[in-house]
């Protein structure tokens, strides 16, 4: 890992500050102070990307463990919704539902993952705007982009934890059997969700510019149902949409027990391509939206 270009670029300033402080500590014999209390034992070291990652992920972790109500609330709502779907569906469709139950459980699992990642990223960007913290990040040596990306990673991990609980309860409730090979499931579902993360960044960017429109974009998550259940076998072009291809692969992995390395290379490449592509487009939208907000002077508005 390298230090951020800014820290390296500003080496004169940093180095100046450091050498001065070091000489101070040396002069004071590294003791607790010589009475005037200035800068003793204060030896700034430039932060690396590892430090940044630790700081951002630790913050996400703290919020998660300190305020569990959000996560628990999300799990409960998702399960209630699934319960209605399952019991209601059984009343209406009877055996037809039972035949496709495994597919529904897998699809619902992926949907909760997608919704969790999308809404947490887009809402989080909205909150950062409201708190004035996004604006503050803009002038830091790292900028907001790596912070947002790291937050995205944290959100995906968090969503996996909550969705795993939902999956477990769904399996118990319905009595279905699914193949849960951890590496296969995490890689396929993870990459599928990364494409949605890109949509989250794009929505976050729109929120930075148009605060109210951002709230409406939350409705997009219901559209994910369509993407998760897209008939990619009949219409292969649908695979280029976010989630669709990943969803089909996840169905095969969890319902038919296909392992990650048993998939054709082309399928895996497409999965990665779609993930990277949507993430890149989303980041670009976010970047330009933030830039436009800076030009219009609305970055700090709330």
């Amino acid at each position, binding site marked *: 890992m390298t230090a951020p270009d800014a820290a390296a670029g500003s080496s004169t300033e940093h180095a100046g500050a450091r050498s001065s402080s070091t000489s101070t500590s040396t002069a004071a014999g590294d003791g607790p102070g010589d009475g005037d209390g200035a800068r003793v034992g204060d030896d700034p070291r430039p932060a690396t990307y590892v430090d940044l990652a630790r700081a951002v992920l630790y913050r996400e972790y703290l919020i998660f463990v300190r305020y569990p109500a959000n996560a628990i609330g999300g799990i409960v709502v998702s399960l209630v919704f699934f319960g209605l779907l399952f019991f209601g569906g059984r009343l209406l469709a009877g055996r037809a539902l039972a035949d496709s139950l495994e597919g529904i459980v897998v699809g619902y699992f992926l949907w909760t993952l997608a919704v969790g990642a999308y809404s947490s990223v887009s809402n989080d960007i909205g909150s950062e705007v409201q708190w004035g913290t996004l604006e503050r990040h803009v002038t830091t*040596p790292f900028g907001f982009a790596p912070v947002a990306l790291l937050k995205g990673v944290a959100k995906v991990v968090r969503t996996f934890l909550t969705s795993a609980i939902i999956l477990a309860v769904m399996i118990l409730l319905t009595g279905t059997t699914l193949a849960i090979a951890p590496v296969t499931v995490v890689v396929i579902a993870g990459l599928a969700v990364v494409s949605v993360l890109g949509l989250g960044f794009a929505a976050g960017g729109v929120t930075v510019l148009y605060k109210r429109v951002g709230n409406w974009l939350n409705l997009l998550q219901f559209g994910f149902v369509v993407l998760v259940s897209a008939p990619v076998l009949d219409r292969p072009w649908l695979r280029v949409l976010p989630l669709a291809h990943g969803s089909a692969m996840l169905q095969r992995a969890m319902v038919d027990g296909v392992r990650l390395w048993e998939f054709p290379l082309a399928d895996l490449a497409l999965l990665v391509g779609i993930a990277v592509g949507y993430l890149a487009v989303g980041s670009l939208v976010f970047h330009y939206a933030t830039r436009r907000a800076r030009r219009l002077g609305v970055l700090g508005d709330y």
Partner: protein
Amino acid sequence: MAPTTPDGPAPAPDGTPALSVEELSKRFGSGGDAVRAVDDVSFSVERGSVVGLLGPNGAGKTTLIKSVLGTVIPDEGTVRVLGRDAADGRRATYANVDAMLEGARNDYWRLTVRENLRYFATVGGVAPDSVADRHDRLLDRLDLAEKADTPVRELSRGMKQKMSLASVLAGGAKLVFLDEPTLGLDVEGSRTLRRELRRLAEEDDLTVVVSSHDMRVIEDVCDRVIVMSAGAVVADDSVERLLGAVDDYRVRVASEELSPATIDDLRGRFDVVDADAGADPPTVEVRTDGDAAYDLFDALRAADVTLDRVDTVEPSLEDVFVRLTGAGAGGTSGSEPGDEDGAPGTGRRRATVVGDDGGAR
């Protein structure tokens, strides 16, 4: 060896200013509705100095600060920070800069005070463990040590504000911008913050640009004031020299025997700037340059007015401000995009001379 040199810990080889702004302009909107929020502003700030940015609401203070910081992209002009042109790489330019914008925002309220300091030191480019001692020292100085492990949301407004200041200084920034740092604080909170600001600036050899519509902040803390009005700089001088520029000394007398008729008579003969016949006791304030004071007391004696109270009124920065901008300090005009919406103090009586912002918001 002294811990710091008189030029600060990281002097530029050629002693370049901490901040240099040239012909900066920012316009919002287009056509007839366009607002020139910052209009061809140039100034520079020497290292280690504390410069105040004073102006009514909508004068462009916040937009100027944000344009300098780059969170608002200016239309024209150059910004140099510690000798480095912002156009040559924004992030490198601002590596040693931090800002406290709009009071107590800009921090994570769900994290504790210390967690905020560590987080913002890191994103500011400094590994948090390497400045742990600095953080302890900051918390001590700002009386936050006891609250170090308390989530920010549980702190009082004043504490939040101090916490904001601490987090801005956590990464060891050399140039800090404070936008309305005392906004919403009570008298005591504002006084503490002013005292600490001054002390930190002196002891840590910081360069500070502080915007405020609170004259007391500027008078107490700043070496120099830049007065803005309608996006432009209308004055830029030391506080003392600006005060000296107003040769406006007044006497305020209060007496039960000041009848409306007497006050009318005084109005005819003296430069009466303020009078209140309905007050208890009635008062009159007269501009008294040269011998006018003697004449005033002679006139009062002749009118059989026994004086209850006599005060001399010295010119304040507010008088300078009113003269320069033609506005009350509390602001008159509407706000502009990104400016100080809802800042308290609107309609504050000038004669009360800069009260603090107790109870606002």
